[in-house]
């Protein structure tokens, strides 16, 4: 039903052929929409984006949507069977092992082509972690439409877009320290109106 969809494999091959050293990974999508995405490595992201925009066959001249996504640290517990010495005899024992995959933030770009009328191609840029290393290169120099949306992702998720011409908070106030769209954000208690107290006072 959508416009001409693009083969993700082909785009991947094209990027890898054009941008030397660029690592591209395909992230399959399990939903019926079938919009698979490409994970770019941060060093070559701008170069790859320029290629996607200017390549005469792809001409992805229109970056529609930039979304931040927060992936928390994942704790995986698995049960492993191990041979162990128990009471002098070797036995098979079940043991639980915990491993933590570190969380990261992600900027998701949806690209379309106004000239060729096809799309979407979904690009993903990932940060190293959710703290100091929450940095990805900005694609605003490639597509101006990312300007406000990257500022929004910076504001609400705390992703720092390196190379953005004017990276400031856009929706929240400048003094705010936190990033409210993160999954571990806890809203501060409402200072002006402690719901219970005022309601009791006001209830006649």
């Amino acid at each position, binding site marked *: *039903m959508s416009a001409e969809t693009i083969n993700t494999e082909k785009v991947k091959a094209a990027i890898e052929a054009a941008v030397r050293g660029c690592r591209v990974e395909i992230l399959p999508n399990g939903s019926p929409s079938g919009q698979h995405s490409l994970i770019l490595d941060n060093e070559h992201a701008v170069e790859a984006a320029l290629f996607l925009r200017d390549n005469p066959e792809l001409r992805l001249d229109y970056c529609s*949507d930039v979304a931040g996504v927060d992936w928390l640290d994942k704790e995986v517990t698995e049960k492993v069977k191990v041979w162990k010495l128990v009471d002098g005899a070797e036995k098979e024992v079940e043991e639980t092992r915990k491993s933590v995959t570190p969380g990261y933030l992600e900027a998701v770009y949806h690209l379309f082509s106004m000239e060729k009328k096809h799309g979407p191609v979904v690009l993903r840029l990932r940060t190293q972690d959710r703290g100091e290393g929450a940095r990805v290169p900005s694609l605003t120099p490639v597509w101006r439409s990312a300007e406000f949306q990257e500022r929004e992702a910076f504001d609400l998720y705390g992703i720092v877009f390196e190379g953005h011409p004017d990276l400031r908070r856009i929706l929240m106030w400048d003094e705010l320290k936190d990033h409210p769209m993160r999954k571990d954000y806890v809203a501060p208690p409402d200072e002006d109106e402690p719901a219970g107290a005022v309601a009791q006072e006001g209830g006649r």
Partner: protein
Amino acid sequence: MSAVEERIVELTGDVDSGQLLEVSMGPHHPSTHGVFRMNVELEGERVMKLKPVFGYLHRNHEKIAENGSYLAAMPFTDRLDYMCSMTNNWAYALSVEKLAGIAVPERAEYVRVIVAELTRLQNHVSLIGFLMQDMGASGTPLMYAFREREKILDLFEQLSGTRMMCNYMRFGGVRVDPTPEWLAEAEALVGRFPAFLDEFEQLLRENEILMSRTQGVGVLPRELAVNAGVTGPMLRASGVNYDIRKVDAYGIYDRFQFRVPLGEHGDVYDRYMIRMLEMRESVKILEQALREIPEGPAMDPKARLRGLRPKAGEAYGRIESPKGELGFFLISNGTPEPYRYRVRPPSMINLTVLEDMCLGRSVADIVVTLGSVDIILGEVDR
């Protein structure tokens, strides 16, 4: 010469000028359609710099939606672009249907087209009214526009129970099946609409004051429009043929005969005329849809109202809302709540180019240019 002075000379050609005046235009300026502020730097009357500031109406709509079920987000989408709740509903329903693979029955598709095009009519007609109000034509055009808009809102009230916060669409169809009387009434309204459009055009099109205030003002070049992701009537006024109804043919738009009006100059007058012409095309679509609407269920019988749990995955669905491309990006992780719920707000992204359109023009032109962008702060701030 300092950098600022050089810039002034570049923009105005005036070598003698010097001082810049910083003005905060808004958030309570009557022309800003709500609470919207522009930090403007002026040299005399000329705009040297313009930075939009918003967020006054921010309520973190996306977070609210991520904390509720898929169904619970539907009434909140009404409040995004509160002039066009029907198209907001459709964009969200479309995205969820893509995400979960839900089919929509034929009749519901027709009903969706009908209400969406009615929404387009009432949005464009009131936008033109507001634009004239911003220009100083106080009252008359806006009142005429609102008179017609009210008739459409009455139809919405009969159908969904509310004039503006319709909350009408559901995943897999629409909430209420329109009665034959309702369809007849809609047909009568659509039949009368071209006469009103003629009248409205007669009122304004050749008006010399309107022409001198809008022609050549707020010009948006084609390349910049594409690069800055401008969509909707604003993009088409700059001469780019990109209408998602044609490109994606979502719903059943490929069954209707209609044309996409294109502008040539990309100025405010073109944006005004594009909306006028688009209304005429909408009337054509409505006539066809109301004639061809089949009998049948308005809701997929397999679709359940509660407890939707899409498989893990993601989907981006978009429609041509009256303001531009309205998209919803959803990520599911298999739970009843969306893991990520993102709105692509057309009015916010169309504001990216506001500065480019206003530089070197006078303050009065900011008002007109902003009016022609067609922003709704409920959607810009979310």
